[in-house]
């Protein structure tokens, strides 16, 4: 097991290396070069020259690359142009918000997606099935930001039962030490603060979770449909096993492999959706920070973030592969 993990992590190295080269070239091909990105478009030539000298942008490319890699390997991603603080520190303070949001979105997507997909397959061709097919089709084709608008309009403006934006009501005097607002509230016993933070998560969480939900429904449905007529299911039935046992141990378990893969893929994709969702709900997480970084061409932030996401992707894939061995003994043997 450990050897498999080690091997997978080793495979990550060439990808990250290639990515670092591409990012390095990317920063250098920004319009006007990195110095202009730092100083703004109306920078004087003298100022540009000074910055180039200061940051070493006037050095030979190869030398620049080694300096840059050296810093990356030490975990130094540079300073954000917008805030002037280290990129890593910025990530650390904003990531908890996006993680909270993603967790809500995933719980929603998995908690409804798998049962709905399973029901659709069991009642193939019936109303539940058609309904779920149509719903998942809508879920796939509706743009995240449009869905966010609809939810915000319905549940925060038309029937104001949930807060329209932000992470927590500023009037609540909450203590924060982990930056996970819900968790903070629970740990400090400020349950009203935790409840308020949770309410702020519902609408963006629903918006963010809808695409993964739709995809999980489809994959679960297709996978259960394929499995439920398999020979071993017929055998199980023939030897008189209880229907409950057949469903949970034979059908569902065997149908889960593609579903787990999909969940992994979708988890990685949540971050793109978060950029859009957080923008609509003025939710102060990594997504809205990225949006600002895009506008200001805050390249140290973008660069650090892309490397970070690539690592995250690889880790998620690794977790998916490990979960295979838990679900399916055949994978374990190989």
């Amino acid at each position, binding site marked *: 097991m450990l050897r498999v993990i080690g091997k997978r992590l080793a495979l990550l190295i060439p990808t990250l290396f290639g990515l670092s080269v591409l990012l390095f070239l990317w920063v250098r091909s*920004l319009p006007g070069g990195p110095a202009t990105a730092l100083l703004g478009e109306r920078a004087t030539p003298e100022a540009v020259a000074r910055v180039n000298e200061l940051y070493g942008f006037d050095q030979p490319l190869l030398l620049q690359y080694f300096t840059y890699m050296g810093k990356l390997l030490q975990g130094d991603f540079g300073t954000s142009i917008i805030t002037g603080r280290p990129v890593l520190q910025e990530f650390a303070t904003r990531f908890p918000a996006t993680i909270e949001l993603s967790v809500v979105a995933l719980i929603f997507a998995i908690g409804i997606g798998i049962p709905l997909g399973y029901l659709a397959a069991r009642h193939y061709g019936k109303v539940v099935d058609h309904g779920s097919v149509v719903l998942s089709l809508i879920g796939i084709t509706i743009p995240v930001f449009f869905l966010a608008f609809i939810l915000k309009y319905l549940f925060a403006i038309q029937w104001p039962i949930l807060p329209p934006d932000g992470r927590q009501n500023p009037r609540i005097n909450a203590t924060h030490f982990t930056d996970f607002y819900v968790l903070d509230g629970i740990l400090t016993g400020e349950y009203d603060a935790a409840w308020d933070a949770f309410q702020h998560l519902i609408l963006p969480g629903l918006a963010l979770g809808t695409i993964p939900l739709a995809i999980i429904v489809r994959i679960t449905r297709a996978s259960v449909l394929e499995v439920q007529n398999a020979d071993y299911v017929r055998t199980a039935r023939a030897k008189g096993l209880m229907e409950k046992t057949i469903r949970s141990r034979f059908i569902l378990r065997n149908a889960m492999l593609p579903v787990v893969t999909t969940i992994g893929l979708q988890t990685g994709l949540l*971050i793109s959706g978060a*950029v859009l969702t957080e923008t609509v709900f003025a939710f102060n997480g990594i997504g809205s920070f990225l949006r600002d970084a895009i506008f200001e061409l805050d390249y140290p932030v973008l660069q650090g973030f892309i490397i970070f996401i690539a690592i995250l992707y690889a880790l998620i894939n690794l977790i998916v592969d490990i979960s295979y061995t838990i679900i399916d003994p055949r994978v374990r043997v190989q």
Partner: protein
Amino acid sequence: MSNILPPAAGGEVTPATAEPTLSEGSGTGLWKDAFRRLRRNPQAIAGAIIIGLFLLVAALAPILAPYGGNELPGRTEITPINIPGPGELPEYPLGLDRFGGDVLSKLIWGAQASLMIGVISTAIGLAGGMLLGLLAGGLGGWVDSVIMRFVDILLSVPNLLLAVSIAAILGQGQYAVMIAIGASQLPIFARLLRSSMLSQRGSDYILAAQTLGLSRRTITMSHLLPNSVGPVIVQATLSLATAVIDAAALSFLGLGGGLPQTAEWGRMLTYAQAELASSPYLAFLPGACIAITALGFTLLGESLREALDPKTRQK
């Protein structure tokens, strides 16, 4: 994963079980057969109608739209606290936006913009991806390794972020958006074509062609490629939906360039944000247009996949 979504019609149409698959050989090619099956699939027809309407509106925009795309005919009708909504003024049936633009005209011109961005960006992705996939699948060896590593790297960055990074280099504007979205779709096409070619490589007909002494180029170009292109075409149809949504997302984030009142669906949503409480139609109308267009391409793409899938073909 096989696609198991046969709509009601799928099973009923062919009672020709007495006359098995051989009869298909008499003049019915893969594509002809696929087309025949598409015509009988209500899902495909619904998709085709949506796309047909969308194409028609986009093509006839100059005739259909009461006003020009960037015109602000109702500039004098709006005040900071009041934007006339749908039905309030007879000359603007779907109301005005905060700039004084006619929403109906902007939606119509927006169809043209979306169609152009969607088609061109997918074409860019398709052309680039197919070239890479063809080189990788056709030449194999180290070329294959290098190209696939490159594709892996691109795949390790989320699509939207990749598009955004490319747009950052190219500057804001419609062309940047097209290239960015095209480039972000390139890896999928490259991978699909390569894997499809690899799966065909061991087939008997390739072996036959090799035995006949045909050159590698001829085999690749006139045997391998045409037989491997099916999944790529399906993906291209589905990618059109993604391209329309992604283009709207990029211009929603403000990377589309041009004037703020530009008639583009994603852009219209950006400025609808502030008016969501008072004029929700400003968000709902363009949003619905994006969703319906994407729905059309998705329906058509999925029926096409079904029609080309050998697993469901025999039915």
